[in-house]
C-alpha cells in the first residue's frame, strides 16, 4: 500500500476511534447508570463550553492562567538563562549553584504551595512563584548543558581567527547552545503549564482554569469541569505544537544546528 493510502487509512481509523469513544461515553451517560451530575452528556458539555465562551468567562479564565504562565516563565528565563550561562562558563559559579539546584530540583513545585500561601497570601503571587519554580530548573540546566556542549574546537577556531570575548559569546557560544536553550524553554513552558493548574487549584484565586475546575467540583458542575478540561487540552496542544515549532524553524533549524523535523 502506498504511503498516502496508509496515511488515509490511519486518519480514517483515528476518526472512527474518536467517534466510537464519544458514542460509548454518550451511551454510558444516557444509560442512567450514573447520576447525570457526574457524567453529563456531550451536548451538555458542548453547550456549557459555548455558553461560557460567549459570555466571556472562559476566555477570561484562560487569559488569567496564561498571564500567570507568562509572568512566571519570564522570571524563570530572566533568572535561569544568565545563571546557566555563567555556570557553563565559570567553574566557581557551577560549583556553587549546581549542588543547590540538584537539591531543590527534585522537590515538586506544588510542595511549596502551602509555604508560599503562608508567606504571600492567597492569590496571584503564589501561582506566579510556583510557575517560576517549576520552569526555572529546566531552563537553568539546559542552558548550562548547552554552553558546556559547545564544541571546544569552534571556540579555539574563533579565537584563532581573532574573535574577542563578546564576539565569541554572541557568534559562537549562543548559537551553539541554542538547541539546548530552546529545548529548555519548551520543557520549562510545559512544566509551567502543569504547575499553574495545580497552583490555581490550591491557592484559590477567583480566576484561572485550574480554579474553575476545582470550584466546579464543589457544585458538582461536571459539565463546567469537562469544558475547562477541553480548553486546557487545546491550550496545551497549541503551546506544544505551534509556539515552538515556529521558534525552532526560525532559529536552530535555519542555522543548521538540528535537522528539520521530517515533514
Amino acid at each position, binding site marked *: 500500500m502506498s504511503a498516502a493510502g496508509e496515511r488515509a*487509512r490511519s486518519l480514517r481509523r483515528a476518526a472512527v476511534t474518536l467517534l466510537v469513544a464519544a458514542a460509548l461515553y454518550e451511551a454510558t451517560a444516557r444509560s442512567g447508570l450514573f447520576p447525570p451530575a457526574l457524567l453529563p452528556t456531550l451536548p451538555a458539555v458542548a453547550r456549557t463550553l459555548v455558553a461560557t465562551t460567549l459570555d466571556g468567562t472562559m476566555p477570561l479564565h484562560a487569559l488569567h492562567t496564561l498571564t500567570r504562565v507568562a509572568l512566571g516563565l519570564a522570571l524563570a528565563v530572566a533568572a535561569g538563562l544568565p545563571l546557566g550561562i555563567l555556570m557553563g562558563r565559570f567553574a566557581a559559579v557551577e*560549583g556553587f549553584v549546581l549542588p*543547590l539546584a540538584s537539591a531543590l530540583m*527534585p522537590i515538586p513545585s506544588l510542595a511549596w504551595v502551602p509555604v508560599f*500561601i503562608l508567606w504571600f497570601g492567597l492569590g496571584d503571587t503564589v501561582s506566579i512563584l510556583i510557575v517560576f519554580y517549576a520552569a526555572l530548573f529546566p531552563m537553568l540546566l539546559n542552558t548550562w*548543558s548547552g554552553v558546556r556542549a559547545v564544541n571546544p574546537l569552534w571556540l579555539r577556531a574563533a579565537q584563532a581567527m581573532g574573535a574577542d570575548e563578546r564576539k565569541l559569546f554572541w557568534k559562537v557560544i549562543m548559537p551553539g547552545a541554542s538547541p539546548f536553550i530552546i529545548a529548555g524553554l519548551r520543557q520549562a513552558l510545559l512544566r509551567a503549564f502543569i504547575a499553574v493548574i495545580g497552583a490555581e*487549584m490550591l491557592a484559590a484565586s477567583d480566576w484561572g*482554569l485550574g480554579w474553575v475546575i*476545582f470550584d466546579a467540583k464543589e457544585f458538582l458542575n461536571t459539565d463546567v469541569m469537562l469544558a475547562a478540561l477541553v480548553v486546557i487540552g487545546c491550550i496545551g496542544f497549541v503551546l506544544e505544537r505551534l509556539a515552538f515549532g515556529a521558534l525552532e524553524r526560525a532559529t536552530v533549524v535555519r542555522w543548521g544546528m538540528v535537522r528539520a523535523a521530517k515533514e
Partner: protein
Amino acid sequence: MPELVPATAPRASVPAERANARLRAATRTAFPFLVVGAAWEAVAHAGLFPPRLFPPLESVGAALVRLTASGILPHHVAETLLRLAAGFALAALVGVALGIAMGRSRRAEDIALPLVSIGAPIPGLAYAPLFLLWFGLGNVSAILLVAFVSAFPIVFNTWTGVKAVKDVWVRSAQAMGADNPRLFRLVILPGALPYILTGLRLGLAQAWRILVGVEMLAAVPWGLGWLIFGAREFLNTDVMLAGIAVIAVIGLALENLVFRRLEEFTVVRWGMMA
C-alpha cells in the same frame, strides 16, 4: 590525561590523596548549603518576619526530630511511598502493554494513538477534581490519578522503542526461524528496552510530582502532601519545611536511582557530553 602521568609517581600516597580529594569534593558541595543556611538563619533571627512564618533552621530540625520520634513522619512517608508504588506499578503494567501493542500492530496504533494524544497535553492535576468526583475522596482516586498521569510517558516511549527496533533484526530473526514468541522475547523486547526504561523513569518522576499535589487535594488522612498542606491551617511552617526536606530527600533518591544512570547510558555514552 592519565597516560601522561610518569610511571614513577609515588604510589604509597594514593589512598591518602584519594581520601583528601573526596574530602575536598564534600567541602565544595557543602559550601553553598552553608552559605544559604547562614543567610536563612540571619534573616530568621533578624526578626524581619514573624518566626511562625519564617522559622530558624533549628526549629525545623526540631520539628523533624519530634515528628520522626513520635512515628508520625514515618507513617506519612510510608503511605506516600505505598501510593507511589501502587500507582506506578499500575501505570507500568498498562503502559508497557499498551505501548508494545501500539508498536507491533498498526491497527492498535491507529486506535489508541488519537486517545493517548488527546489525553497527554492536559496537565495531570486538571483531572484530579474529575477523579475525585467519580471515585470519591481518598486512596482510590489518588492512586488511579497517579497511574493515569504517569502512564503517558511510559506508553509513548515504549511505543517509540518498539518501532525503533531495526527491521533488519526482525527479518533476520524470522529468516533464522524464530517464531512469534521468540521474536518478541529475544529481539523486540531487548531492542526496545532502553526506550522502555526511559519511559519508566520519566513516568516515575511524573508520578512523584503529581502525587504530592494529589495528596493535598484528595483529603487522604496520611501522606507527605497532606502533612504540609494540613500544617498550613495551624501556621506550622516548621512542620511544612521539615516535610519539604523529606520530600526533597525522597525525590533526590528517586532521581539518582533514575536520572544519573539514564544520563550515563545515553548522552554520556554517545559522546554528546563529558
